[in-house]
């Protein structure tokens, strides 16, 4: 536990000790700001009873942030330690491989959550100026953040896996980006099956990330995507652990 907390602190610290953390942070703030102005325009033009979070999600900036931030946050986790050699000093301390993997993942996920905090501010601003307490329903806000964190966990674990595979941060980022985009694009296949029935439609309904996330933003928590995201996250973390461990098989 002590090693885990120490490593998580170090992981978080490394984001703020280098420029890359601040670059990601400001890029995300910029994108969130753009989506916010977008949202305000929609709110000004027509009356709507949809939750703010769903309208925010409707701008699709969410995916831009997720797909771009995931590779940048996770590429360093293992690849940088391997290329600088600190992986060797880390793995010769009495810390278990699983603890290292979990700590790296936690660090990435926590930083990712920090990236999404400005969204809260946006929602509060809308609420303040609309004088309508219904704008900020804790339930919808909670389910939106649940979706953001679950999807984030999935993408971070994918990124950790990619980073563990290589000693080049660029290669790690490219693998994460390619994998993340593919996963995202699966939802378009799933959309083309919505009017059909049969096993294909059923199968692809499970990977419709866009629609699943829209449900979360609407305040609907369906256990199927929750289980799907969590199991994929565990799967990638398991693979990461195996990759880290594999140096002992050779």
């Amino acid at each position, binding site marked *: 536990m002590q090693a885990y907390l*120490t490593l998580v602190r170090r992981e978080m*610290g490394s984001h703020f000790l*280098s420029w890359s953390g601040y670059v990601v942070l400001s890029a995300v703030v910029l994108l969130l700001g753009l989506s916010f102005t977008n949202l305000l325009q929609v709110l000004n033009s027509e009356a709507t009873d949809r939750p703010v979070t769903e309208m925010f999600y409707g701008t699709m900036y969410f995916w831009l942030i997720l797909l771009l931030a995931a590779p940048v946050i996770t590429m360093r986790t293992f690849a940088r330690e391997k290329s600088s050699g*600190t992986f*060797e*000093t880390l*793995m010769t*301390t*009495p810390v278990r491989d699983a603890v290292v993997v979990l700590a790296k993942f936690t660090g990435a996920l926590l930083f990712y959550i920090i990236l999404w905090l400005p969204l809260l501010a946006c929602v509060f601003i809308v609420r303040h100026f609309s004088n309508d307490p219904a704008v900020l329903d804790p339930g919808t806000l909670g389910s939106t953040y649940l979706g953001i964190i679950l999807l984030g966990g999935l993408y971070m674990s994918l990124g950790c896996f990619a980073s563990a595979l290589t000693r080049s941060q660029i290669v790690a980022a490219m693998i994460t980006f390619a994998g993340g985009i593919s996963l995202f694009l699966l939802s378009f296949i799933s959309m083309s099956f919505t009017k059909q029935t049969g096993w294909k439609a059923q199968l692809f309904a499970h990977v419709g990330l866009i629609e699943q996330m829209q449900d979360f933003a609407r305040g609907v928590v369906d256990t199927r995507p929750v289980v799907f995201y969590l199991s994929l996250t565990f799967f990638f973390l398991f693979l990461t652990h195996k990759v880290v461990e594999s140096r002992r098989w050779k």
Partner: protein
Amino acid sequence: MDNGTMIEVEHLTKRYTGRAAVADVSFTVRRGEIVGLLGPNGAGKSTILRILSCFMPATSGTVRVGGLDVFTQADDVRRRLGYMPENNPLHRDMRVREYLKFRARLKGLSRAASRDRVDVVMQQCGLDDVHRRIIGHLSKGYQQRVGLADALVNEPELIILDEPTIGLDPNQIRSVRQLIKDLRPKHTVLISTHILPEVEMTCNRVLILDHGTIRAADTPENLQKIMSETGQVIAEIAAPWADLKNCWDQLPEVQSFDLAAAEGDYIRCALTARAGVDLRPQVFAMVRDRGWALRELSRSRHSLEDIFVRVTRADREEEES
């Protein structure tokens, strides 16, 4: 196994995709010894150290540190170990004290213990002046000390240092060597290097490694003694060339000699004696009898360098023939 053995390596072999980096190596290191692992680049030094530090497993053979197997009891071994890998990798974005505390906590020290130990090792390694500086901004000598302090921070029984003085200037090398020497007898130290004077100055025992096998293992003094039996005597004498040549021809103990003009009227004679004979008294007696002037009389001590070259070259020649 008795309590005095720190490292026990038996028939250690490590293969990388068909090529054996280490082939059937066995050696033991006693508690409190400083042992140097000496060999040219690619001889398998780092591989042995990585196996000892539980970073990777051996292909075959057993390795025990303090009686514990490095493969099955890796966690316990790591707790007793301070390891500084090749090129001394550090988190260059952290500050010195912050980094050492981070490492101490990772190695399982409590908050209070890590604070105390960090203070101790920083003083031991002369890092007090730079404790707030960012590691990446420090000079290489200081960075090396940070790596050394990291290896020492958990008070390990065994310290493994892979090329600890590489890339340092002579003053820094001297201070790092002194630091290593001071670790005796509390710690057992295993260092790898391809710099020969380093081993001569710091180690009680040398293992010469080449092509993944141990070629020689002894104290530096003993290895020198073996070599000096065929050593040369150098004498600079002011005398007519022909007379001098005549003298050496007549001395039965001189096996062969070589004359060369030195500065002034002197002639530099390099004399090879028959085995086991010290030529120096005879040379002096001869010079005194003839009334010549003698400027230098010395026996060339074989440095480890000669031993090293001989051991590793003999191997190559065998291979070629």
